[in-house]
Protein backbone atom coordinates (compact mmCIF):
# COMPACT_ATOMS: atom_id res chain seq x y z
CA UNK A 1 0.00 0.00 0.00
CA UNK A 2 1.71 3.16 -1.12
CA UNK A 3 -0.35 6.16 -0.15
CA UNK A 4 -3.44 7.35 1.63
CA UNK A 5 -5.56 7.02 -1.47
CA UNK A 6 -4.79 3.33 -1.60
CA UNK A 7 -5.59 3.03 2.07
CA UNK A 8 -8.89 4.85 1.59
CA UNK A 9 -9.83 2.62 -1.33
CA UNK A 10 -9.07 -0.43 0.73
CA UNK A 11 -11.16 0.88 3.60
CA UNK A 12 -14.04 1.54 1.19
CA UNK A 13 -13.89 -2.03 -0.08
CA UNK A 14 -13.62 -3.33 3.43
CA UNK A 15 -16.68 -1.35 4.55
CA UNK A 16 -18.69 -2.57 1.61
CA UNK A 17 -17.83 -6.15 2.43
CA UNK A 18 -18.81 -5.87 6.08
CA UNK A 19 -21.57 -8.18 7.16
CA UNK A 20 -24.65 -6.67 8.78
CA UNK A 21 -27.79 -8.41 10.04
CA UNK A 22 -30.75 -8.77 7.67
CA UNK A 23 -33.31 -5.98 7.53
CA UNK A 24 -36.24 -8.16 8.64
CA UNK A 25 -34.40 -9.32 11.70
CA UNK A 26 -33.31 -5.80 12.58
CA UNK A 27 -36.74 -4.30 11.94
CA UNK A 28 -38.47 -6.81 14.17
CA UNK A 29 -36.10 -5.99 16.98
CA UNK A 30 -35.95 -2.23 16.64
CA UNK A 31 -39.04 -0.80 14.99
CA UNK A 32 -41.73 -1.75 17.54
CA UNK A 33 -39.66 -0.42 20.45
CA UNK A 34 -38.81 2.74 18.55
CA UNK A 35 -42.43 3.46 17.75
CA UNK A 36 -43.55 2.59 21.26
CA UNK A 37 -40.89 4.98 22.63
CA UNK A 38 -42.21 7.76 20.43
CA UNK A 39 -45.82 7.17 21.43
CA UNK A 40 -44.82 7.14 25.06
CA UNK A 41 -42.76 10.31 24.78
CA UNK A 42 -44.87 12.44 22.55
CA UNK A 43 -47.09 15.21 23.78
CA UNK A 44 -50.64 15.30 22.46
CA UNK A 45 -50.42 17.16 19.17
CA UNK A 46 -52.62 17.61 16.19
CA UNK A 47 -51.77 14.88 13.75
CA UNK A 48 -51.12 15.54 10.15
CA UNK A 49 -54.27 15.86 8.15
CA UNK A 50 -52.52 14.32 5.19
CA UNK A 51 -54.35 11.40 3.80
CA UNK A 52 -52.96 7.92 3.67
CA UNK A 53 -53.82 7.33 0.09
CA UNK A 54 -53.06 3.70 0.05
CA UNK A 55 -55.79 2.81 2.51
CA UNK A 56 -58.36 3.78 -0.05
CA UNK A 57 -56.57 3.07 -3.25
CA UNK A 58 -54.29 0.20 -2.55
CA UNK A 59 -51.69 -1.98 -4.22
CA UNK A 60 -48.37 -1.81 -5.92
CA UNK A 61 -48.09 -4.66 -8.32
CA UNK A 62 -44.84 -3.53 -9.75
CA UNK A 63 -43.81 -0.27 -11.26
CA UNK A 64 -46.52 -0.36 -13.85
CA UNK A 65 -49.30 -0.49 -11.34
CA UNK A 66 -47.59 2.15 -9.29
CA UNK A 67 -47.82 4.36 -12.33
CA UNK A 68 -51.58 3.93 -12.29
CA UNK A 69 -51.83 5.01 -8.73
CA UNK A 70 -49.53 7.91 -9.30
CA UNK A 71 -51.74 9.12 -12.06
CA UNK A 72 -54.74 8.89 -9.83
CA UNK A 73 -53.11 10.91 -7.15
CA UNK A 74 -51.66 13.50 -9.40
CA UNK A 75 -54.74 14.11 -11.42
CA UNK A 76 -57.05 14.73 -8.59
CA UNK A 77 -54.93 15.88 -5.73
CA UNK A 78 -54.76 19.41 -6.84
CA UNK A 79 -58.28 20.55 -7.35
CA UNK A 80 -58.86 21.52 -3.79
CA UNK A 81 -56.07 24.02 -4.03
CA UNK A 82 -57.63 25.35 -7.15
CA UNK A 83 -59.21 28.35 -5.60
CA UNK A 84 -59.04 31.09 -8.16
CA UNK A 85 -62.49 32.17 -9.35
CA UNK A 86 -62.06 31.13 -12.95
CA UNK A 87 -61.04 27.67 -11.79
CA UNK A 88 -63.30 27.03 -8.87
CA UNK A 89 -63.45 23.53 -7.48
CA UNK A 90 -67.14 23.32 -8.28
CA UNK A 91 -66.38 23.88 -11.96
CA UNK A 92 -63.86 21.11 -12.00
CA UNK A 93 -66.25 18.73 -10.28
CA UNK A 94 -68.99 19.68 -12.66
CA UNK A 95 -66.68 19.03 -15.58
CA UNK A 96 -65.72 15.60 -14.31
CA UNK A 97 -68.94 14.17 -12.99
CA UNK A 98 -70.43 13.02 -16.29
CA UNK A 99 -67.58 10.71 -17.09
CA UNK A 100 -67.60 7.08 -16.10
CA UNK A 101 -64.27 6.10 -17.65
CA UNK A 102 -60.77 7.47 -18.15
CA UNK A 103 -57.96 6.54 -20.52
CA UNK A 104 -54.44 7.66 -19.67
CA UNK A 105 -51.34 7.16 -21.80
CA UNK A 106 -48.01 7.95 -20.27
CA UNK A 107 -44.33 7.13 -19.97
CA UNK A 108 -42.35 6.00 -16.99
CA UNK A 109 -38.63 5.20 -16.85
CA UNK A 110 -38.11 2.19 -19.02
CA UNK A 111 -41.37 2.22 -20.92
CA UNK A 112 -44.86 3.52 -21.47
CA UNK A 113 -48.21 2.53 -20.04
CA UNK A 114 -51.82 2.72 -21.09
CA UNK A 115 -54.35 2.83 -18.31
CA UNK A 116 -58.10 2.26 -18.63
CA UNK A 117 -60.39 2.73 -15.65
CA UNK A 118 -64.18 2.42 -15.51
CA UNK A 119 -66.59 3.07 -12.66
CA UNK A 120 -69.80 1.31 -11.63
CA UNK A 121 -73.08 2.73 -12.90
CA UNK A 122 -73.62 4.80 -9.79
CA UNK A 123 -70.14 6.23 -10.26
CA UNK A 124 -69.21 5.53 -6.68
CA UNK A 125 -66.08 3.44 -7.27
CA UNK A 126 -64.08 1.84 -10.07
CA UNK A 127 -65.02 -1.66 -11.17
CA UNK A 128 -62.67 -2.33 -14.09
CA UNK A 129 -59.01 -1.44 -14.45
CA UNK A 130 -56.44 -2.47 -17.03
CA UNK A 131 -52.88 -1.19 -17.13
CA UNK A 132 -50.87 -2.23 -20.18
CA UNK A 133 -47.13 -1.63 -20.23
CA UNK A 134 -45.07 -1.29 -23.38
CA UNK A 135 -42.84 -4.16 -22.28
CA UNK A 136 -45.81 -6.50 -22.15
CA UNK A 137 -46.71 -6.38 -18.48
CA UNK A 138 -50.43 -6.14 -17.77
CA UNK A 139 -52.27 -5.46 -14.55
CA UNK A 140 -56.02 -5.92 -14.36
CA UNK A 141 -58.96 -6.66 -12.10
CA UNK A 142 -61.54 -9.38 -12.68
CA UNK A 143 -64.30 -10.79 -10.50
CA UNK A 144 -62.95 -9.19 -7.37
CA UNK A 145 -59.35 -10.33 -7.88
CA UNK A 146 -56.29 -8.47 -9.14
CA UNK A 147 -53.75 -9.92 -11.56
CA UNK A 148 -50.36 -8.77 -12.76
CA UNK A 149 -48.69 -10.52 -15.68
CA UNK A 150 -44.91 -10.33 -16.02
CA UNK A 151 -43.93 -11.46 -19.52
CA UNK A 152 -40.25 -12.01 -18.74
CA UNK A 153 -41.23 -14.57 -16.12
CA UNK A 154 -44.39 -15.68 -17.95
CA UNK A 155 -46.02 -15.46 -14.54
CA UNK A 156 -49.28 -14.01 -13.31
CA UNK A 157 -49.17 -12.70 -9.76
CA UNK A 158 -52.64 -12.56 -8.28
CA UNK A 159 -54.51 -11.77 -5.11
CA UNK A 160 -58.16 -12.35 -4.29
CA UNK A 161 -59.05 -8.72 -3.72
CA UNK A 162 -59.61 -5.79 -6.07
CA UNK A 163 -56.50 -3.91 -5.01
CA UNK A 164 -56.21 -1.43 -7.85
CA UNK A 165 -58.76 1.17 -8.75
CA UNK A 166 -60.54 4.00 -7.08
CA UNK A 167 -62.71 3.63 -4.00
CA UNK A 168 -64.13 7.03 -4.76
CA UNK A 169 -64.85 7.89 -8.33
CA UNK A 170 -64.43 11.39 -9.68
CA UNK A 171 -66.25 13.79 -7.42
CA UNK A 172 -66.05 16.00 -4.37
CA UNK A 173 -65.08 13.23 -1.93
CA UNK A 174 -62.10 12.22 -3.98
CA UNK A 175 -61.06 15.79 -4.58
CA UNK A 176 -61.32 16.59 -0.92
CA UNK A 177 -59.61 13.37 0.00
CA UNK A 178 -56.60 14.24 -2.08
CA UNK A 179 -56.34 17.88 -1.21
CA UNK A 180 -52.79 17.59 -0.03
CA UNK A 181 -50.88 19.49 -2.60
CA UNK A 182 -48.67 22.29 -1.39
CA UNK A 183 -46.97 25.21 -3.09
CA UNK A 184 -49.57 25.25 -5.80
CA UNK A 185 -49.09 27.77 -8.60
CA UNK A 186 -51.22 28.40 -11.64
CA UNK A 187 -49.96 29.81 -14.91
CA UNK A 188 -52.26 30.64 -17.79
CA UNK A 189 -51.25 30.78 -21.41
CA UNK A 190 -51.84 29.49 -24.90
CA UNK A 191 -50.58 26.35 -26.48
CA UNK A 192 -48.30 27.68 -29.25
CA UNK A 193 -49.11 24.70 -31.46
CA UNK A 194 -52.88 24.73 -31.27
CA UNK A 195 -53.63 28.19 -29.97
CA UNK A 196 -55.90 26.71 -27.33
CA UNK A 197 -56.02 28.35 -23.96
CA UNK A 198 -54.50 26.22 -21.26
CA UNK A 199 -53.72 26.37 -17.59
CA UNK A 200 -50.56 24.90 -16.14
CA UNK A 201 -50.65 24.01 -12.52
CA UNK A 202 -47.50 23.19 -10.56
CA UNK A 203 -47.49 21.73 -7.10
CA UNK A 204 -45.33 19.67 -4.81
CA UNK A 205 -45.65 17.74 -1.63
CA UNK A 206 -43.67 15.43 0.53
CA UNK A 207 -45.02 12.49 2.43
CA UNK A 208 -43.77 9.20 3.72
CA UNK A 209 -43.20 8.03 0.17
CA UNK A 210 -40.79 10.87 -0.37
CA UNK A 211 -40.84 14.13 -2.25
CA UNK A 212 -43.07 14.54 -5.29
CA UNK A 213 -43.93 17.39 -7.61
CA UNK A 214 -46.23 17.78 -10.57
CA UNK A 215 -47.05 19.90 -13.54
CA UNK A 216 -50.62 19.39 -14.70
CA UNK A 217 -52.03 20.88 -17.83
CA UNK A 218 -55.73 21.73 -18.02
CA UNK A 219 -57.77 22.58 -21.03
CA UNK A 220 -59.18 26.01 -20.26
CA UNK A 221 -62.43 25.37 -22.07
CA UNK A 222 -63.36 21.96 -20.70
CA UNK A 223 -61.61 22.43 -17.33
CA UNK A 224 -60.38 18.86 -17.57
CA UNK A 225 -56.79 17.76 -16.95
CA UNK A 226 -55.26 16.76 -20.27
CA UNK A 227 -51.62 16.06 -19.39
CA UNK A 228 -49.50 15.56 -16.31
CA UNK A 229 -45.88 15.04 -15.33
CA UNK A 230 -44.61 13.83 -12.02
CA UNK A 231 -41.12 14.00 -10.51
CA UNK A 232 -39.70 12.18 -7.50
CA UNK A 233 -38.48 15.45 -5.97
CA UNK A 234 -39.84 18.82 -4.91
CA UNK A 235 -38.28 21.00 -7.59
CA UNK A 236 -39.20 19.01 -10.70
CA UNK A 237 -35.57 18.36 -11.52
CA UNK A 238 -34.39 15.56 -13.75
CA UNK A 239 -36.56 13.22 -15.83
CA UNK A 240 -40.15 12.73 -14.65
CA UNK A 241 -41.08 9.47 -13.00
CA UNK A 242 -44.36 9.45 -14.92
CA UNK A 243 -45.40 11.56 -17.88
CA UNK A 244 -49.09 11.23 -18.71
CA UNK A 245 -49.20 12.91 -22.07
CA UNK A 246 -52.74 11.91 -22.97
CA UNK A 247 -55.79 11.84 -20.74
CA UNK A 248 -59.18 11.19 -22.26
CA UNK A 249 -62.52 11.05 -20.47
CA UNK A 250 -65.40 8.83 -21.62
CA UNK A 251 -69.01 8.57 -20.63
CA UNK A 252 -68.57 4.81 -20.90
CA UNK A 253 -66.38 2.18 -22.57
CA UNK A 254 -67.12 -1.19 -24.16
CA UNK A 255 -66.34 -4.29 -22.12
CA UNK A 256 -63.82 -5.43 -24.70
CA UNK A 257 -61.43 -2.70 -23.58
CA UNK A 258 -61.02 -4.59 -20.35
CA UNK A 259 -60.50 -8.02 -21.90
CA UNK A 260 -57.06 -9.43 -21.19
CA UNK A 261 -55.37 -12.33 -22.96
CA UNK A 262 -52.20 -13.90 -21.68
CA UNK A 263 -50.30 -17.02 -22.78
CA UNK A 264 -52.01 -20.24 -21.72
CA UNK A 265 -48.78 -21.61 -20.24
CA UNK A 266 -48.38 -18.74 -17.82
CA UNK A 267 -47.66 -19.69 -14.23
CA UNK A 268 -49.92 -18.34 -11.47
CA UNK A 269 -48.42 -17.24 -8.17
CA UNK A 270 -50.41 -15.76 -5.30
CA UNK A 271 -49.06 -12.54 -3.87
CA UNK A 272 -48.32 -12.55 -0.15
CA UNK A 273 -50.47 -10.41 2.14
CA UNK A 274 -48.53 -7.29 3.01
CA UNK A 275 -49.09 -3.86 4.42
CA UNK A 276 -46.94 -0.85 3.53
CA UNK A 277 -44.01 -0.43 5.88
CA UNK A 278 -44.83 3.22 6.33
CA UNK A 279 -48.21 2.44 7.88
CA UNK A 280 -46.79 0.10 10.48
CA UNK A 281 -45.85 2.97 12.75
CA UNK A 282 -49.39 4.24 12.98
CA UNK A 283 -50.55 0.80 14.09
CA UNK A 284 -48.11 0.60 16.96
CA UNK A 285 -49.74 2.78 19.60
CA UNK A 286 -50.60 0.43 22.47
CA UNK A 287 -53.55 2.62 23.40
CA UNK A 288 -55.27 1.86 20.11
CA UNK A 289 -57.17 -1.30 19.23
CA UNK A 290 -58.44 -3.93 21.61
CA UNK A 291 -56.87 -6.50 23.86
CA UNK A 292 -56.56 -9.95 22.33
CA UNK A 293 -55.59 -11.64 25.58
CA UNK A 294 -57.30 -15.01 25.93
CA UNK A 295 -58.79 -14.82 22.44
CA UNK A 296 -57.91 -16.77 19.35
CA UNK A 297 -56.96 -14.66 16.35
CA UNK A 298 -60.32 -15.46 14.77
CA UNK A 299 -62.19 -14.37 17.90
CA UNK A 300 -60.15 -11.20 18.24
CA UNK A 301 -60.56 -10.33 14.57
CA UNK A 302 -64.30 -10.87 14.68
CA UNK A 303 -64.61 -8.82 17.83
CA UNK A 304 -62.64 -5.84 16.56
CA UNK A 305 -64.35 -5.84 13.17
CA UNK A 306 -67.82 -5.90 14.73
CA UNK A 307 -66.77 -3.04 17.01
CA UNK A 308 -65.40 -1.12 14.05
CA UNK A 309 -68.59 -1.48 12.02
CA UNK A 310 -70.64 -0.57 15.09
CA UNK A 311 -68.55 2.59 15.46
CA UNK A 312 -69.28 3.39 11.82
CA UNK A 313 -73.01 2.85 12.26
CA UNK A 314 -72.98 4.92 15.47
CA UNK A 315 -70.86 7.56 13.74
CA UNK A 316 -68.52 7.41 16.71
CA UNK A 317 -65.40 9.11 15.37
CA UNK A 318 -63.18 8.66 18.40
CA UNK A 319 -63.99 5.00 18.77
CA UNK A 320 -63.48 4.39 15.09
CA UNK A 321 -60.09 6.08 15.08
CA UNK A 322 -58.90 4.09 18.05
CA UNK A 323 -59.87 0.82 16.37
CA UNK A 324 -58.58 1.83 12.93
CA UNK A 325 -55.72 4.21 13.76
CA UNK A 326 -54.66 4.94 10.19
CA UNK A 327 -57.74 7.14 10.03
CA UNK A 328 -56.25 9.45 12.65
CA UNK A 329 -54.51 11.17 9.76
CA UNK A 330 -57.81 12.16 8.23
CA UNK A 331 -59.84 15.23 8.99
CA UNK A 332 -63.04 14.62 10.93
CA UNK A 333 -65.29 16.14 8.33
CA UNK A 334 -63.77 14.07 5.58
CA UNK A 335 -63.82 10.93 7.66
CA UNK A 336 -67.49 11.45 8.42
CA UNK A 337 -68.29 11.96 4.77
CA UNK A 338 -66.22 9.15 3.32
CA UNK A 339 -66.75 6.43 5.94
CA UNK A 340 -69.91 7.22 7.87
CA UNK A 341 -71.82 8.67 4.87
CA UNK A 342 -74.69 9.85 7.07
CA UNK A 343 -76.77 11.18 4.19
CA UNK A 344 -76.07 8.50 1.59
CA UNK A 345 -77.85 5.36 0.53
CA UNK A 346 -74.70 3.27 0.48
CA UNK A 347 -73.92 3.73 4.16
CA UNK A 348 -73.60 0.62 6.30
CA UNK A 349 -76.62 -0.19 8.45
CA UNK A 350 -76.02 -3.81 9.48
CA UNK A 351 -73.21 -6.32 9.83
CA UNK A 352 -74.42 -9.57 8.34
CA UNK A 353 -71.39 -11.78 8.66
CA UNK A 354 -67.76 -11.75 9.65
CA UNK A 355 -66.03 -14.60 7.85
CA UNK A 356 -63.09 -16.78 8.80
CA UNK A 357 -59.52 -15.55 8.55
CA UNK A 358 -58.34 -16.13 5.00
CA UNK A 359 -54.96 -14.99 3.91
CA UNK A 360 -52.31 -14.16 6.50
CA UNK A 361 -48.97 -12.42 6.38
CA UNK A 362 -46.51 -10.61 8.60
CA UNK A 363 -45.50 -7.07 9.39
CA UNK A 364 -42.78 -6.00 11.82
CA UNK A 365 -45.47 -5.82 14.50
CA UNK A 366 -46.69 -9.38 14.05
CA UNK A 367 -49.25 -11.39 12.10
CA UNK A 368 -51.66 -9.67 9.75
CA UNK A 369 -54.79 -11.36 8.50
CA UNK A 370 -57.46 -10.63 5.90
CA UNK A 371 -61.01 -11.27 7.06
CA UNK A 372 -64.10 -10.93 4.84
CA UNK A 373 -67.11 -9.05 6.16
CA UNK A 374 -70.55 -8.80 4.62
CA UNK A 375 -72.62 -5.74 5.44
CA UNK A 376 -76.00 -4.45 4.43
CA UNK A 377 -76.27 -0.95 3.03
CA UNK A 378 -79.13 1.45 3.57
CA UNK A 379 -80.27 0.95 -0.03
CA UNK A 380 -80.77 -2.74 0.74
CA UNK A 381 -77.74 -3.98 -1.15
CA UNK A 382 -75.15 -6.25 0.37
CA UNK A 383 -71.45 -5.50 0.10
CA UNK A 384 -68.44 -7.64 0.81
CA UNK A 385 -65.31 -6.02 2.12
CA UNK A 386 -62.12 -7.75 3.18
CA UNK A 387 -60.43 -6.10 6.12
CA UNK A 388 -56.85 -6.50 7.33
CA UNK A 389 -56.33 -6.88 11.06
CA UNK A 390 -52.92 -6.40 12.61
CA UNK A 391 -52.19 -8.65 15.60
CA UNK A 392 -49.39 -7.40 17.81
CA UNK A 393 -47.70 -7.96 21.10
CA UNK A 394 -46.54 -4.72 22.66
CA UNK A 395 -44.77 -5.36 25.91
CA UNK A 396 -46.51 -8.33 27.49
CA UNK A 397 -49.92 -7.63 26.05
CA UNK A 398 -51.50 -9.18 22.97
CA UNK A 399 -53.78 -6.83 21.09
CA UNK A 400 -55.01 -6.03 17.62
CA UNK A 401 -56.00 -3.07 15.48
CA UNK A 402 -57.70 -2.75 12.13
CA UNK A 403 -55.29 -1.78 9.37
CA UNK A 404 -57.99 -1.06 6.83
CA UNK A 405 -59.67 -2.53 3.78
CA UNK A 406 -57.93 -5.16 1.70
CA UNK A 407 -58.97 -3.98 -1.70
CA UNK A 408 -62.15 -2.23 -2.67
CA UNK A 409 -65.64 -3.22 -1.50
CA UNK A 410 -67.83 -5.32 -3.82
CA UNK A 411 -71.56 -5.18 -4.01
CA UNK A 412 -72.74 -8.77 -3.98
CA UNK A 413 -76.47 -8.39 -4.24
Amino acid at each position, binding site marked *: *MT*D*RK*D*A*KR*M*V*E*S*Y*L*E*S*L*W*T*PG*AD*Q*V*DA*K*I*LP*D*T*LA*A*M*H*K*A*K*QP*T*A*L*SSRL*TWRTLMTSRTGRLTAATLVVGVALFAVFDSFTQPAWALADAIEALKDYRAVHVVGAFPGGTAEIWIRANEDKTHSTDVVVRGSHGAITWTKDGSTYHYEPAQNTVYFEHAPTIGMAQWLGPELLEMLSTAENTKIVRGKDPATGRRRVMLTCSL*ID*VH*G*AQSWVIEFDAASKLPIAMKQWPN*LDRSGPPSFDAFKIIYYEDLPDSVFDVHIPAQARYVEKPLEIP*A*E*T*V*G*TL*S*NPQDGISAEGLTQQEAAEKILRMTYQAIMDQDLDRFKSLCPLCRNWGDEFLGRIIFKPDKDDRIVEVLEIGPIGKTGHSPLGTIAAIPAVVRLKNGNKAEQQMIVQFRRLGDTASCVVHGPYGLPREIE
Partner: protein
Amino acid sequence: MIEDRFLVWRFNRGDAAALCRIYEKYRDGLLKVAAALLNDRSGIEDVLHDVFVGFAQTVGRFELHGSLKGYLSICVANRARDRNRMARRQNTANWDNALPQPADLAGPQQVAMSHELVARLDAAIAELPDEQREAIVLHVQSKMPFREIARLREISINTAMSRYRYGLDKLRSILNGELES
Protein backbone atom coordinates in the same frame (compact mmCIF):
# COMPACT_ATOMS: atom_id res chain seq x y z
CA MET B 1 -31.70 17.73 2.71
CA ILE B 2 -35.13 19.24 2.45
CA GLU B 3 -36.78 15.84 2.66
CA ASP B 4 -35.16 15.21 6.01
CA ARG B 5 -36.32 18.55 7.29
CA PHE B 6 -39.90 17.69 6.35
CA LEU B 7 -39.57 14.29 7.93
CA VAL B 8 -38.21 15.76 11.14
CA TRP B 9 -41.01 18.32 11.13
CA ARG B 10 -43.58 15.58 10.81
CA PHE B 11 -41.81 13.39 13.34
CA ASN B 12 -41.93 16.24 15.83
CA ARG B 13 -45.68 16.39 15.33
CA GLY B 14 -45.89 12.75 16.36
CA ASP B 15 -46.17 11.24 12.90
CA ALA B 16 -45.13 7.61 13.31
CA ALA B 17 -44.99 7.12 9.56
CA ALA B 18 -42.31 9.80 9.33
CA LEU B 19 -40.31 8.05 12.02
CA CYS B 20 -40.60 4.79 10.06
CA ARG B 21 -39.42 6.54 6.94
CA ILE B 22 -36.39 7.99 8.75
CA TYR B 23 -35.62 4.58 10.15
CA GLU B 24 -35.87 2.83 6.80
CA LYS B 25 -33.91 5.51 5.02
CA TYR B 26 -30.88 5.31 7.28
CA ARG B 27 -31.04 1.80 8.74
CA ASP B 28 -28.64 0.09 6.33
CA GLY B 29 -25.99 2.79 6.38
CA LEU B 30 -26.06 2.98 10.16
CA LEU B 31 -25.74 -0.78 10.45
CA LYS B 32 -22.51 -0.52 8.47
CA VAL B 33 -21.24 2.25 10.72
CA ALA B 34 -21.99 0.15 13.78
CA ALA B 35 -20.37 -2.92 12.25
CA ALA B 36 -17.23 -0.96 11.44
CA LEU B 37 -16.94 0.66 14.86
CA LEU B 38 -17.83 -2.18 17.17
CA ASN B 39 -15.25 -4.67 18.35
CA ASP B 40 -18.00 -7.14 19.19
CA ARG B 41 -20.38 -7.33 16.28
CA SER B 42 -23.04 -9.16 18.22
CA GLY B 43 -23.95 -5.71 19.47
CA ILE B 44 -24.80 -4.14 16.11
CA GLU B 45 -28.56 -4.39 16.54
CA ASP B 46 -28.39 -3.24 20.15
CA VAL B 47 -26.54 -0.11 19.14
CA LEU B 48 -29.05 0.73 16.44
CA HIS B 49 -31.91 -0.08 18.80
CA ASP B 50 -30.59 2.33 21.42
CA VAL B 51 -29.98 5.06 18.87
CA PHE B 52 -33.46 4.92 17.36
CA VAL B 53 -35.27 4.51 20.67
CA GLY B 54 -33.31 7.51 21.96
CA PHE B 55 -34.13 9.47 18.85
CA ALA B 56 -37.83 8.54 19.11
CA GLN B 57 -37.91 9.87 22.65
CA THR B 58 -36.97 13.33 21.40
CA VAL B 59 -40.29 13.65 19.56
CA GLY B 60 -41.69 17.15 19.73
CA ARG B 61 -38.38 18.74 20.65
CA PHE B 62 -35.81 17.40 18.22
CA GLU B 63 -33.91 20.16 16.46
CA LEU B 64 -32.00 19.33 13.34
CA HIS B 65 -28.75 21.19 12.82
CA GLY B 66 -26.80 19.90 9.85
CA SER B 67 -27.66 16.57 8.30
CA LEU B 68 -29.88 13.96 9.91
CA LYS B 69 -27.65 11.23 8.57
CA GLY B 70 -24.64 12.85 10.22
CA TYR B 71 -26.47 13.25 13.49
CA LEU B 72 -27.59 9.61 13.56
CA SER B 73 -24.12 8.43 12.51
CA ILE B 74 -22.56 10.30 15.41
CA CYS B 75 -25.13 8.77 17.75
CA VAL B 76 -24.15 5.31 16.51
CA ALA B 77 -20.48 6.18 16.94
CA ASN B 78 -21.11 7.32 20.52
CA ARG B 79 -22.95 4.12 21.39
CA ALA B 80 -20.32 1.98 19.72
CA ARG B 81 -17.55 3.76 21.59
CA ASP B 82 -19.39 3.26 24.90
CA ARG B 83 -19.81 -0.43 24.24
CA ASN B 84 -16.20 -0.89 23.21
CA ARG B 85 -15.02 0.87 26.37
CA MET B 86 -17.31 -1.16 28.57
CA ALA B 87 -16.14 -4.36 26.94
CA ARG B 88 -12.52 -3.35 27.41
CA ARG B 89 -13.13 -2.56 31.05
CA GLN B 90 -14.86 -5.83 31.65
CA ASN B 91 -12.38 -7.58 29.42
CA THR B 92 -15.23 -9.56 28.02
CA ALA B 93 -15.07 -8.66 24.42
CA ASN B 94 -16.03 -11.73 22.54
CA TRP B 95 -13.35 -11.92 19.94
CA ASP B 96 -15.01 -14.92 18.39
CA ASN B 97 -17.64 -12.46 17.24
CA ALA B 98 -15.25 -9.65 16.56
CA LEU B 99 -14.13 -10.84 13.19
CA PRO B 100 -16.58 -11.65 10.46
CA GLN B 101 -16.77 -15.31 9.66
CA PRO B 102 -16.23 -16.34 6.04
CA ALA B 103 -19.93 -16.96 5.61
CA ASP B 104 -20.61 -13.43 6.75
CA LEU B 105 -18.93 -11.98 3.74
CA ALA B 106 -21.16 -11.82 0.77
CA GLY B 107 -21.54 -10.13 -2.57
CA PRO B 108 -19.11 -9.04 -5.24
CA GLN B 109 -16.78 -7.48 -2.75
CA GLN B 110 -16.06 -10.92 -1.41
CA VAL B 111 -14.40 -11.63 -4.68
CA ALA B 112 -12.55 -8.34 -4.64
CA MET B 113 -11.21 -8.79 -1.13
CA SER B 114 -9.92 -12.06 0.19
CA HIS B 115 -11.11 -13.26 3.56
CA GLU B 116 -7.58 -13.03 4.78
CA LEU B 117 -7.28 -9.40 3.82
CA VAL B 118 -10.63 -8.56 5.38
CA ALA B 119 -9.58 -10.26 8.57
CA ARG B 120 -6.31 -8.32 8.59
CA LEU B 121 -8.15 -5.07 8.01
CA ASP B 122 -10.56 -5.97 10.77
CA ALA B 123 -7.73 -6.45 13.17
CA ALA B 124 -5.88 -3.36 11.96
CA ILE B 125 -8.93 -1.12 12.26
CA ALA B 126 -9.64 -2.49 15.72
CA GLU B 127 -6.12 -1.43 16.72
CA LEU B 128 -6.76 2.20 15.83
CA PRO B 129 -7.56 4.69 18.58
CA ASP B 130 -11.33 5.20 18.81
CA GLU B 131 -11.30 8.73 17.48
CA GLN B 132 -9.20 7.83 14.41
CA ARG B 133 -11.31 4.81 13.61
CA GLU B 134 -14.42 6.92 13.98
CA ALA B 135 -13.12 9.70 11.74
CA ILE B 136 -12.34 7.18 9.01
CA VAL B 137 -15.70 5.40 9.23
CA LEU B 138 -17.77 8.57 9.44
CA HIS B 139 -15.94 10.17 6.54
CA VAL B 140 -15.76 7.11 4.29
CA GLN B 141 -18.94 5.22 5.14
CA SER B 142 -21.31 8.04 6.14
CA LYS B 143 -19.74 10.51 3.70
CA MET B 144 -19.64 13.13 6.42
CA PRO B 145 -17.55 16.18 5.60
CA PHE B 146 -14.81 16.97 8.09
CA ARG B 147 -16.63 20.19 8.89
CA GLU B 148 -19.64 18.26 10.12
CA ILE B 149 -17.57 15.75 12.06
CA ALA B 150 -15.78 18.66 13.68
CA ARG B 151 -19.02 20.44 14.56
CA LEU B 152 -20.69 17.37 16.05
CA ARG B 153 -17.55 16.37 17.93
CA GLU B 154 -16.86 19.95 19.00
CA ILE B 155 -13.32 19.87 17.67
CA SER B 156 -11.57 21.91 15.02
CA ILE B 157 -11.70 20.91 11.37
CA ASN B 158 -7.95 20.43 11.42
CA THR B 159 -8.26 18.01 14.30
CA ALA B 160 -10.96 16.05 12.48
CA MET B 161 -8.79 15.89 9.36
CA SER B 162 -5.72 14.93 11.37
CA ARG B 163 -7.53 12.07 13.04
CA TYR B 164 -8.55 10.79 9.64
CA ARG B 165 -5.04 11.13 8.19
CA TYR B 166 -3.31 9.62 11.20
CA GLY B 167 -5.80 6.78 11.12
CA LEU B 168 -5.13 6.00 7.49
CA ASP B 169 -1.37 6.29 8.02
CA LYS B 170 -1.53 3.94 10.94
CA LEU B 171 -3.59 1.47 8.94
CA ARG B 172 -0.99 1.56 6.17
CA SER B 173 1.74 1.12 8.71
CA ILE B 174 0.07 -1.86 10.34
CA LEU B 175 -0.72 -3.57 7.05
CA ASN B 176 2.67 -2.81 5.50
CA GLY B 177 4.35 -4.06 8.65
CA GLU B 178 2.44 -7.29 8.44
CA LEU B 179 3.32 -7.71 4.83
CA GLU B 180 7.00 -7.16 5.52
CA SER B 181 6.98 -9.61 8.40
